[in-house]
């Protein structure tokens, strides 16, 4: 007989978990007590949301479920934003929370909250464990559910007394669930229909989304585009699937996308969407876009197909196998005219001239990506910094872009980078955030120092919540309210207080020199960039 808490920890060991991100508290102490007896490395974050975001970064770079831990009550509610963020981007997480003892549930005792109830709308699944003997099976199911089908966060809420209950150990080898069968064999007739539609199309377009990463189908997506000579656009979650300079690649589509990509979307006759869910930021008027086109939608989640855009050829399945099969098709070379036409509108990402006393963020991002190794991981936060990165970072083969695409969670980047760096210690990880988003999670500098995590941090300081300021300028007659965040603090000094090397730059000449320094550093490094409050995300603006 073993404690259920020990069974929880043994489950992590069996699942090959090496790192967990968390923050302890009274009700999760039995679990921590057992965790201490293993080789699993616990990263102590400074806020529970960051445990979830760090696990998200780790999961995205390992493509396996990652684990975050919090205590009951405020620990759990702090974690909620990270769970919702992971849910929106289909990131596989196993979120373990402590809960008050079963005899106290419903009594509104200290640090009690209905965690599974609160998270209900944005978890793939959740368990409130009342019977300790089910722990091994539930842990097995949690990892299985999180990491298969359309991936996502699974919450396991375990009351303190349950963790302390003695149970039979033993981790199940297999999952038995009569209701959950995530593996769908793609319909071969539909694959044949797609091949035919692509072969007959004169103006086909491929749109790749985050699902391509989740299914590990990057090579297959590129191979299909190259074989069929189809130009490609990407959603924000699909950035870095294609290298920016790939001859068939046009850039990011949508509200914040580039003209070439949006022109291609509106002019194509056949749109093949793979692992993309037609979010409003990518395609604002789906029914308009679909008019007169053949829409092909490939996704592992049948509920995404036909949800936001009418579809002519639906195909449910894992896009890796599907893209591989599509790449084996034979396609006539009949859209040279289309490619030539698109070449005319390609590369319209322009910048305004350099202003004295300021760093031009678009040029900065280009210089940064040129200086970083080709396999660098770029983690953008949310806001102007995210759009500057999306449209200006030159992704080369092997590079990776991470951001909170669906939820747009400010403060995601720094903890996400912590997780990404722990998953890929040999790769350069650079965080790009604004002064608004940085202040949402800068407590994680302490984690970075304590864990000696060599992430490189760029803070674009424009003393504004720039994205909202732009919105106010464009849609609210430039009535600026609640967007001025002042010129404090001195971020380089803050970093210094944590013992992190830091610097500032005010001009592009300075920036060019300091980017070199930042990339060359072997330790964590923060670079504060003085950016004009007038800078916008618009291309050419």
């Amino acid at each position, binding site marked *: 007989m073993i404690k259920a808490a020990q069974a929880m920890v043994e489950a992590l060991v069996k699942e090959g978990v090496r790192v967990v991100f968390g923050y302890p508290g009274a009700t999760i102490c039995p679990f921590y007590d057992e965790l201490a007896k293993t080789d699993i490395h616990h990263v102590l974050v400074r806020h529970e949301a960051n445990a979830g975001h760090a696990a998200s970064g780790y999961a995205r770079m390992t493509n396996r479920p990652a684990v975050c831990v919090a205590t009951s009550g405020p620990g759990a509610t702090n974690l909620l934003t990270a769970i919702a963020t992971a849910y929106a981007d289909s990131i596989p997480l196993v979120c373990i929370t402590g809960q008050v003892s079963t005899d106290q549930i419903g009594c509104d005792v200290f640090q009690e909250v209905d965690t599974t109830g609160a998270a209900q*709308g944005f978890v793939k699944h959740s368990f*409130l464990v009342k019977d300790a003997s089910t722990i091994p099976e539930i842990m097995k199911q949690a990892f299985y559910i999180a990491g298969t089908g359309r991936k996502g966060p699974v919450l396991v809420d375990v009351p303190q007394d349950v963790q302390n209950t003695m149970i039979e150990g033993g981790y199940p080898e297999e999952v038995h669930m009569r209701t959950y069968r995530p593996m769908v064999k793609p319909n071969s007739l539909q694959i044949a229909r797609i091949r035919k539609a692509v072969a007959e199309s004169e103006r086909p377009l491929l749109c790749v989304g985050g699902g391509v990463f989740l299914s590990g189908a990057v090579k297959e997506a590129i191979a299909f585009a190259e074989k069929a000579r189809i130009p490609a656009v990407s959603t924000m979650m699909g950035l870095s699937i294609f290298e920016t300079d790939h001859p068939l690649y046009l850039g990011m589509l949508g509200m914040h996308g580039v003209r070439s990509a949006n022109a291609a979307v509106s002019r194509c006759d056949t749109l093949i969407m793979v692992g993309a869910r037609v979010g409003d930021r990518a395609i604002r008027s789906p029914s308009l876009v679909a008019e007169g086109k053949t829409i092909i939608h490939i996704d592992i989640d049948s509920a995404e197909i036909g949800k936001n855009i009418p579809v002519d050829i639906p195909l449910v399945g894992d896009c890796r196998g599907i893209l591989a099969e599509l790449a084996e098709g034979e396609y006539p070379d009949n859209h040279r005219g289309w490619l030539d036409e698109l070449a005319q509108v390609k590369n319209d990402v322009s910048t305004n001239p350099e202003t004295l006393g300021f760093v031009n963020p678009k040029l900065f991002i280009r210089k940064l990506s040129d200086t970083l190794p080709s396999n660098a991981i770029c983690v953008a936060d949310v806001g102007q910094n995210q759009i500057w990165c999306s449209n200006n970072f030159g992704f080369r083969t092997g590079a990776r872009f991470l951001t909170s695409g669906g939820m747009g969670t400010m403060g995601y980047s720094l903890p996400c980078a912590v997780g990404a760096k722990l998953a890929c210690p040999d790769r350069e990880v650079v965080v790009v955030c604004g002064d608004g988003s940085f202040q949402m999670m800068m407590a994680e500098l302490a984690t970075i120092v304590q864990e000696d995590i060599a992430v490189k941090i760029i803070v674009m300081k424009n003393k504004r919540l720039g994205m909202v300021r732009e919105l106010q300028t464009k849609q609210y007659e430039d009535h600026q309210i609640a967007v001025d965040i002042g010129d404090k603090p001195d971020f380089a000094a803050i970093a210094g207080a944590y013992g992190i090397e830091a610097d500032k730059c005010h001009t592009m000449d300075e920036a060019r020199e300091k980017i070199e320094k930042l990339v060359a550093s072997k330790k964590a490094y923060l670079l504060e960039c003085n950016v004009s409050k007038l800078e916008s995300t618009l291309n050419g603006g």
Partner: protein
Amino acid sequence: MKHTISVLVENHAGVLSRVTALFARRGFNIDSLAVGHTADPTISRITIVADGDDHTAQQIEKQVNKLIETIKVKVFSPDEILERELIIFKIGAAPTQRSEILTICEIMGARIIDMTPTTMSVEMCDSEVHLERMRDMISGYGIKEIVRTGPIAIQKGATTIR
């Protein structure tokens, strides 16, 4: 448009809450809901009557199907199913009115289950159309209270959901 949706789920605590929350989130207004376990006691059947367009109904079907504890979902149009609902009326009934009410009950297939000097309680199990007709027939006597279960539904013919 009204849709009758049958959902087979694992008979676990919290499952009903997941299903109904999903309806609310996707903008589907639930008119009625009835739950009970099936021939297999580990499986519950939820019958929901809800209002919404066909696109939403299709989304609901897919989204409910995605819930881990869902075994099967089916959305029915009215002509595919047999529906039954249990209703209880508490009717104001003076002694002189009792025999009239009794006659109505006999004709409509309702049954008197309780009686006081001033009221009668009547149960009836039928389709919604017939229940509404019964309501019209007795409304003149003064309906003091109505309680209804919401319909349950089964497919016509030999087809089953499993």
